[in-house]
């Protein structure tokens, strides 16, 4: 009656499905690993402290990524400073104050749509709004503002999701103790939502650091002979530098591009690692 062999068909299906799922994990990882290894091998011969600390040059062996690296970090720092507070505040409004109102619903649908807009469109917006209209010029500030706009929808949606996961019973407990809405949000809701907010922010910052298209439009330059020295300074970023090298006629520059990609990936991984450590630190406080 309960013999194992009776369900043999079901067991084969079970195994088949398991293998399909496993393949779905392994195949993309293999492709990714191949790409990274390939790039690392190509770039290895150029990777050195000198490559990281040198300025661009016409001679491939002497060219380095310093201005682009500093520019990337500068722009990303600005992006985070602008996008995170605004994004979290917007999410708090949508989830805690504007809940269920038709305004909030319309805003939310539009934010979801904005997250799907191609990044070059944000570049054009940044060019019109920040570079020209606001008179920021082709500056670090304009780039930071543009990328902040680009990742804002992601930050808002991730933060909103994190806030939504805070149980309503904790809000009620807080109100029941005579706390105001603001006291409740600041001391109960936000601390609990923080790990989730950080996760969303990490993902969006990672996306921003690899963006090329909007910064081409905003006016990043590929040949910087000095470091960006202020918000109004012109700038370069790593993806632009890499892109520029791949378009040069001399094949040696392709090696530079590969080495540049390794630097970009390393920066991204370092940022992610730092952010994940930070997140785990806050998560550990929760039990």
């Amino acid at each position, binding site marked *: 009656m309960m013999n194992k062999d009776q369900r043999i068909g079901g067991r084969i299906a079970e195994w088949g499905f398991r293998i399909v799922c496993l393949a779905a994990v392994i195949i993309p990882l293999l492709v990714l690993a191949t790409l990274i290894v390939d790039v690392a091998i190509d770039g290895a011969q150029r990777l050195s402290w000198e490559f990281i600390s040198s300025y661009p040059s016409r001679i491939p062996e002497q060219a380095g990524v310093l201005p682009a690296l500093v520019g990337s970090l500068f722009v990303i720092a600005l992006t985070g400073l602008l996008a995170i507070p605004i994004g979290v505040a917007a999410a708090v409004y949508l989830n805690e104050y504007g809940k269920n109102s038709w305004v909030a619903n319309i805003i939310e649908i539009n934010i979801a749509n904005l997250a799907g807009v191609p990044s070059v469109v944000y570049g054009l917006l940044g060019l019109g709004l920040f570079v020209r209209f606001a008179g920021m010029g082709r500056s670090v500030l304009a780039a930071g503002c543009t990328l902040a706009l680009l990742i804002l929808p992601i930050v808002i949606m991730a933060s909103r999701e994190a806030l939504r996961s805070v149980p309503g019973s904790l809000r*009620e407990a807080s109100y029941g103790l*005579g706390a*105001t809405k603001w006291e409740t949000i600041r*001391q109960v809701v936000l601390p609990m939502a923080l790990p989730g907010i950080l996760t969303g922010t990490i993902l969006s910052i990672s996306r921003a650091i690899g963006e090329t298209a909007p910064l081409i439009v905003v006016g990043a330059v590929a040949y910087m002979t000095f470091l960006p020295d202020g918000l109004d300074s012109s700038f370069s970023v790593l993806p632009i530098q890499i892109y520029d090298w791949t378009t040069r006629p001399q094949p040696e520059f392709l090696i530079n591009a590969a080495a540049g990609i390794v630097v970009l990936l390393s920066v991204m991984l370092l940022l992610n690692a730092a952010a994940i450590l930070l997140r785990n630190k806050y998560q550990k406080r929760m039990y």
Partner: protein
Amino acid sequence: MSTTSTKLSVSDLDASYGDHQVLHSIDMDIPAKEVTALIGPSGCGKSTYLRCLNRMHELTTAATVNGTVQLDGADIYHDDIDPVLLRRHIGMVFQKPAPFPTWSIADNVLAGLKLTGGVPDNADEIVEKALKGAALWEEVKDKLDKPGTSLSGGQQQRLCIARAITVEPDVLLMDEPCSAIDPVATARVENLIHELGENYTIVVVTHNMQQAARISDKTAFLMMGELVEFDETSKLFSNPSKQETEDYITGKFG
């Protein structure tokens, strides 16, 4: 049982969620420093009624209230009353224990003070007093810095009671405080409620009639959003004056 003064005076109270009216003109005088139990079948409006007493009901979307509730003679629904400040006088303990997960046991006890502005210098004394008051001190005194959620369900509920009495309310509202914890823990919380009734005015919602009989001085029976009968607990359970009450407590329905 001595006759005492009225703490909360409810008159002609209606409550609705949108078009759905849940409470129909409730009139009731809740005595000071006694335990009043609210019983009735599921959906009879007892939780809603409780939430009208500290103006938590109105936090729900489209919820409305009509009528008056007087705390020591002052209408809590008057325009001049700030519901946030009111809730510091009328505390609440919920069905599911909800200690703040990111906070330690001590911080949870002090939550009412921490949330609303400041912890006084004698915080340690306050924590000890509240935890003793909630019959939890002996169990947690050596791990006050541990998270509140590391405790068992019953301990968490007593922690929430400690948290509620730290702000020194006049009235404690409890919404089925034992329904999410085990029988042993329930017995401890029941004892606690009985003891707290000496110093606080307590209104407790319960779906468990034996519990109401054990812990309360007076009991109100609600059905379909109306107050059917409100009397001394001993009288209501032994000699109810309404047929519905008798049917309910003898288990004919509900």
